[in-house]
């Protein structure tokens, strides 16, 4: 099977999992297990090639402009990890099918299989960018799997995310620096590159960054706290990710880069020290745990520390040890994690203090855990013993002074003693020492659960007895890293320092085990006054507080403070800039005849209106003044020779005022009062910005002839399009993409209103919906007069009568304006606004607040409008000469000039109308919210799928 097909097959699994979990629920695990075994079997011929020294590779072009390619390469090292991913994956999946609660379990299987895909991609990637992407996939899937555990997992998932993303960032920087330094993204070329040989700052930087990335995934100090945190996840997740896969991604990364860094001193020292320290620290912490799963997590951290130290030594023997221990650890640890699940299942708890002595009730589990812990402790004849001996022996091969090797040897020996001790704690704690009475409920679970857990553990026995079987794959793996033969694997090497080391480990360990009962209470407490996850939480809180401090300075939740800095900058740039240009005197003279008398009159009106808006305390009065300003500006637009703009402004002005009135009904009648002292600052700033804006306008406009583009539209516009109204043609043809964007903004503003109002709870809206009683005449003595004022139905009769005539007229006018838009003032926008005013009149003509038009018509109009305009753009590709998006097509129907931009304009019309209808429907009915409005975004049909999931 080629590598691409391997990835395709692995990618197909998560896709198939979706329907499969729907059909057979948790039993999906068996199917996935079979699939993984089948994929592994199909890989055997390829694997044989690789073992014969022929790495398999394949390359596809991906982003050629950046030199990034989709390159895959399978060599000996990748093969070891790929095998672990597939086979341990299969065992864990089979276990999950029985272990998980009988629900659909879509999240679990989806992210587990996605994770397996990411992991396979990671070990196959021969391109740095691809490597990074797969690395992040494993991070994300790991986060999701922990978060999948529900509320208990959220905090831990967050911390895991934080830790692994620190590593992700480090890897990203390392990858970027490497690509720049070597000029290639090919991993194999990069590793073989000679830029690393001088061991200069570049090498040191990249080595440290790669080490940090590896440490975060492989849970090395100080990034280790995420792994115990991650124990919130389901046990199969821990068995796969936290024993065999995700943590091994970190190990893989460090092994892979060993080719470049195995003789870089910084790399050696950093890895060996961190690894040995982590091994000892986590070993000690493991002894303090009473939760078997947490204990297992610390033991994983500790074992990974041993492997990291071996990678740091970097000699062929050390790398051999690292690879073998990776295999051994993947086997016994994933099995032991699953055994913890078995114990949990059988006894109902996994806390040593509450477990009875299980050895009689669960003999098979007892035997399996004996084998697993013995392998982890390094007792012969298991594979764990072979790898532990190798680890010990490899420490002595360290480059540098002899004492360094011996120090590492002693450090590792100490770590191994702790390993022996906590292995014993697992075994005796669960099966021998329990003080509680065995009750009848404790039982050995079925074989469906037990067998997948036993398989990886028992596999360590034959592999240990015949360690030579592993020589070929381990040898190709080591060859891939250091181009040197691997160290010979066997149970018996003669009397060597490492054998003496093992004897010491077992002797001290046995002494400790014999004295375990008095020792335990001393250890089972927190050794430190703080915890790693507490430290992470603390730093996150600190970051939050710092972010809050930064945010306060710009006041994102404080409109006034938020806009002051930009306004001050604007004033300075515009005011000082304009004044400076004037003073320097390099500004061209203004064009003659820039003004007309009407400008002065309009300026007066605008000034009065603005003063009115600013000074009035009554919201109603301010609205009237605002409308006045709007009308004055509209006239100014007409006076500047812009009839389309003027018409649009007029319609928008009217609609805005109506909508403002709708909103004012549910607000207090006056603005909040402010003392004079607090008005001074805004006043000064307002005058300053105003002067700057005026000055800027004067200096920067009216000092040249007509612009080139304007000249082009005036001279060529008609010939190009056959239309007289240049503004309309610019909107729907020349710059139609702008208009499409505008349309989308419009539509989304409408949808945002619907969504925001739907998100406010009904009770809050009802509390808000007590409109102030507007009584223009004050309280009237005559009850009939008061009644006449409030009699909505009677008062509206004249308007309703008028509407009978007005509505058809408005519809006709709207259609005419739409049609004539090509040659005369008009077009989609103006026509839609006229149509909207008809909607407004219908609304105002009703005595009660009811939506105008059918339920959800407005949302349909917005969506339909945007969709129609977008799709019309595709017609542009049919254009013969220059097919582009939104290019208009022309045709004649008789003597009538037709163009596709008219269809586009229909989209414009619908979207604008939809927005206005949303405004009236959503803002208009303040007093009575129809019940169907409770959840306007949810389908009226049967159950909402999201609800179902939550239930």
């Amino acid at each position: 099977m080629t590598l691409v097909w391997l990835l395709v097959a692995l990618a197909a699994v998560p896709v198939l999992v979706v329907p499969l979990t729907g059909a057979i629920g948790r039993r999906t695990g068996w199917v996935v297990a079979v699939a993984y075994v089948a994929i592994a079997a199909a890989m055997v011929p390829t694997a044989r090639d690789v073992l014969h020294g022929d790495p398999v590779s394949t390359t596809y072009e991906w982003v050629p402009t950046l030199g990034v390619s989709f390159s895959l390469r399978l060599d000996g090292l990748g093969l070891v990890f790929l095998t672990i991913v597939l086979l341990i994956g299969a065992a864990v999946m089979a276990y999950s099918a029985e272990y998980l609660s009988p629900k659909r379990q879509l999240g679990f299987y989806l992210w587990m299989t996605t994770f397996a895909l990411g992991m396979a991609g990671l070990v196959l990637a021969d391109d740095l960018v691809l490597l990074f992407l797969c690395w992040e996939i494993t991070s994300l899937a790991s986060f999701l799997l922990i978060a999948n555990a529900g509320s208990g997992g959220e905090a831990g998932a967050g911390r895991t995310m934080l830790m692994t993303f620190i590593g992700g960032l480090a890897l990203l920087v390392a990858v970027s620096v490497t690509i720049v330094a070597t000029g290639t993204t090919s991993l194999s070329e990069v590793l073989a590159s000679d830029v690393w040989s001088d061991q200069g700052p570049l090498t040191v930087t990249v080595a440290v960054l790669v080490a940090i990335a590896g440490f975060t995934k492989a849970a090395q100090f100080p990034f280790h706290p995420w792994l115990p945190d991650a124990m919130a996840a389901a046990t199969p997740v821990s068995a796969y990710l936290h024993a065999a896969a995700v943590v091994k991604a970190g190990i893989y990364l460090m092994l892979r880069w060993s080719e470049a860094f195995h003789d870089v001193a910084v790399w050696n020292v950093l890895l060996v020290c961190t690894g040995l320290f982590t091994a000892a620290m986590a070993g000690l912490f493991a002894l303090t745990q009473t939760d078997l799963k947490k204990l297992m997590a610390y033991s994983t951290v500790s074992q990974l520390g041993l492997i990291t130290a071996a990678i740091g030594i970097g000699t062929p023997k050390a790398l051999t040890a690292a690879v073998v221990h990776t295999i051994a650890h993947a086997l016994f640890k994933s099995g032991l994690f699953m055994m913890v699940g078995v114990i949990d299942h059988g006894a109902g708890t996994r806390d040593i203090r509450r477990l009875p002595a299980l050895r009689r009730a669960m003999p098979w589990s007892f035997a399996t855990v004996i084998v697993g812990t013995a392998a982890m402790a390094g007792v012969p004849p298991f594979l764990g013993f072979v790898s532990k001996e190798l680890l010990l022996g490899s420490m002595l091969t360290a480059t540098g002074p002899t004492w360094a090797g011996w120090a590492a040897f002693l450090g590792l020996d100490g770590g191994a003693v702790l390993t022996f001790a906590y292995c014993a704690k697992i075994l005796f704690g669960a099966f021998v020492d329990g003080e509680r009475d065995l009750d009848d409920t404790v039982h050995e679970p079925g074989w469906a659960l037990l067998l997948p857990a036993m398989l990886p553990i028992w596999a360590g026995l034959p592999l240990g007895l015949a360690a030579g079987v592993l020589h070929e794959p381990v040898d190709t793996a080591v060859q891939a890293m250091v181009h040197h033969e691997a160290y010979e694997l066997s149970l018996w090497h003669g009397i060597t320092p490492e054998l003496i080391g093992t004897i010491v480990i077992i002797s001290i360990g046995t002494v400790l085990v014999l004295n375990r009962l008095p020792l335990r209470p001393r250890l089972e407490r927190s050794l430190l006054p703080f915890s790693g996850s507490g430290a992470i939480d603390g730093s996150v809180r600190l970051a939050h507080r710092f972010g809050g401090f930064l945010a306060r300075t710009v006041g994102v939740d404080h409109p006034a403070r938020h806009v002051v800095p930009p306004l001050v900058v604007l004033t300075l740039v515009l005011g000082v800039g304009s004044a400076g240009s004037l003073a320097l005197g390099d500004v061209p003279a203004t064009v003659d005849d820039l003004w007309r008398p009407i400008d002065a009159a309009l300026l007066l009106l605008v000034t009065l209106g603005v003063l009115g808006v600013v000074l009035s305390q009554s919201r109603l009065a301010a609205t009237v003044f605002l409308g006045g300003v709007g009308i004055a500006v509209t006239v100014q637009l007409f006076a500047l020779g812009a009839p389309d703009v003027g018409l649009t402004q007029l319609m928008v002005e009217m609609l805005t005022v109506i909508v403002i009135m709708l909103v004012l009904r549910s607000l207090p009648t006056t603005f909040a009062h402010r003392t004079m002292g607090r008005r001074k600052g805004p006043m000064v700033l307002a005058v300053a910005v105003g002067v700057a804006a005026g000055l800027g306008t004067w200096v920067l406009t009216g000092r040249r002839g007509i612009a080139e583009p304007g000249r082009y539209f005036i001279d060529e516009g008609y010939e190009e399009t056959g239309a007289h109204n240049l503004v309309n043609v610019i909107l729907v043809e020349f710059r139609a993409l702008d208009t499409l964007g505008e349309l989308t903004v419009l539509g989304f503003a409408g949808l945002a209103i619907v969504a925001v109002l739907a998100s406010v709870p009904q009770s809050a809206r009802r509390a808000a919906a007590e409109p102030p009683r507007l009584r223009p005449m004050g309280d009237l003595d005559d009850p009939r007069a008061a009644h006449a004022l409030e009699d909505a139905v009677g008062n509206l009769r004249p308007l309703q009568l008028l509407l009978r005539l007005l509505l058809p007229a408005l519809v006709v006018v709207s259609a005419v304006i739409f049609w004539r838009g090509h040659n005369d003032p008009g077009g989609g926008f103006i026509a839609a606004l006229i149509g909207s005013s008809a909607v407004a009149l219908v609304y105002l003509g009703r005595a009660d607040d009811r939506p105008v038009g059918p339920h959800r018509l407005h949302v349909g109009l917005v969506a339909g409008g945007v969709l129609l305009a977008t799709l019309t753009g595709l017609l542009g590709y049919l254009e013969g000469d220059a097919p582009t998006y939104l290019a208009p097509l022309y045709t004649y129907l008789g003597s009538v000039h037709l163009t596709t931009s008219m269809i586009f304009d229909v989209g414009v019309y619908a979207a604008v109308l939809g927005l206005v209808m949303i405004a009236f429907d959503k803002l208009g009915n303040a007093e009575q919210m129809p019940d169907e409005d409770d959840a306007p975004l949810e389908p009226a049909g049967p159950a909402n799928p999201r609800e179902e999931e939550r239930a």
Partner: protein
Amino acid sequence: MTFLPITVAVLVAGGVYLLLQPGMVRIIFGITLLSHAANVVLLAAGVSAWRAEPLDTHAGDEVADPLPMAFVLTAIVITLAVTVLMLAMARLGGDDDTYRIPDSGEERHA
């Protein structure tokens, strides 16, 4: 000599003053005034000396620049959308005071 810059100055000053007030409705009014100002600036950029409507292209040199007009038309409709959206926000909670969170009425800024 031209009046448009003064119109712009008045509109901007009023708009900025309102923008700095507490209360969503006044902020919205401020933004409306600022939009007017921006539109006038855009049209002024087309040079206000030529004011013939860009409909009859045979009017020759007197025709106003149509491009700023198209920009302004777009801007006006977007202003409508933004205004309506902000008005919807203003209505939440029965008070438009931007110094309070509507639901709880909790004081945010002492």
